[in-house]
């Protein structure tokens, strides 16, 4: 559905642009093709990393593991798992919800959700290719630290 809308919007935009100015549109298409070709190998890397990772750490295992762990160890474990895995929100939120019900603390669940969304170790190859190593490392590193802070503050506020 999302893909369909995206294709409709972009083809419509290309058509309008073509009617307005052929040369500019040609230039835009050329740029798009070039950056797409350049990103290709990194897309393979990201997809491959996700495959290996999900084979090694299945989502069911995460809920089992985090359900058993308590206290600091559980929170740090949750933050690390959240940082390295990439689970779509559609699966992640129900998973976090079940963690909550199994007795994981607010801090642990918050750490998991926050690093899961903010820190992307597996998508780093594409991020580095687009934005550079320095920015990627700093953004992800700081996001990890702030994710832990957010988790702790949420623990204090929500109890």
């Amino acid at each position, binding site marked *: 559905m999302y893909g369909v809308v995206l294709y409709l919007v972009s083809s419509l935009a290309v058509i309008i642009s073509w009617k307005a100015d052929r040369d500019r549109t040609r230039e835009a298409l050329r740029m798009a093709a070039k950056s797409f070709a350049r990103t290709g190998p990194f897309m393979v890397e990201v997809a491959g990393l996700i495959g290996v990772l999900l084979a090694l750490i299945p989502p069911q295992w995460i809920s089992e593991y985090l359900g058993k762990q308590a206290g600091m160890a559980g929170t740090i474990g949750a933050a690390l798992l959240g940082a390295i895995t990439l689970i779509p929100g559609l699966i992640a939120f129900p998973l976090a919800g079940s963690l909550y019900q199994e007795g994981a603390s607010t801090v642990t669940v918050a750490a998991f959700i926050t690093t899961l969304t903010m820190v992307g170790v597996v998508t780093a190859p594409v991020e580095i290719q687009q934005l550079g190593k320095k920015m990627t490392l700093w953004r992800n590193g*700081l996001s990890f630290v702030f994710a832990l802070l957010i988790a702790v503050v949420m623990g204090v506020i929500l109890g």
Partner: protein
Amino acid sequence: MKKTAQRYRPVILVIAANVVLWYFSPPAAGKSVATAISFFKEMLLILPPVFLLLGLLNVWVPREVIERYIGRGSGIKGVVISMFLGSTLVGPLYAAFPVAAALLAKGARVSNVVAFLTAKAAAEIPLVAMEAKFLGLPFAVCRLGLTLVAAVIIGWIVERVVEAPQHQPGSNVSLDGGSNRKSPKGAA
């Protein structure tokens, strides 16, 4: 030749990782390859139109416009616009990286682009609605608020670090994406 090898290093790495995995556990490797293929298909579906739209943005939107709204001197308005863009943009985070690169190349401020990415990653409105359903409204609202505050601070720090004067060769890779240094506008 060497350049080609370097370019396809990611692909070679992935194949090697799967061979190792297969050595220890063939079913796990099978699962891994199946997941990778389905994920790659999703990326192939989503990224081409994203690059198309960015190509158009590049030729049609004047640099001044981006600079005015989210560039240096755009102030608090720039931060708010960036985070609003981030949290309303649907789709996967990896599709937002090219968008971020294009905005940077057009004169957006680093702190704003990082705030955009953070908001996109952790404060996406449709996802927050889902979060409220599974984890409760207080949890979702509390996390959303704290995340937006964090987005501003993280953006500010990353900007200081990335723009810190450094006189080493290749120190300005921050804007052109490491592996292709020859095109400074590698963002398209």
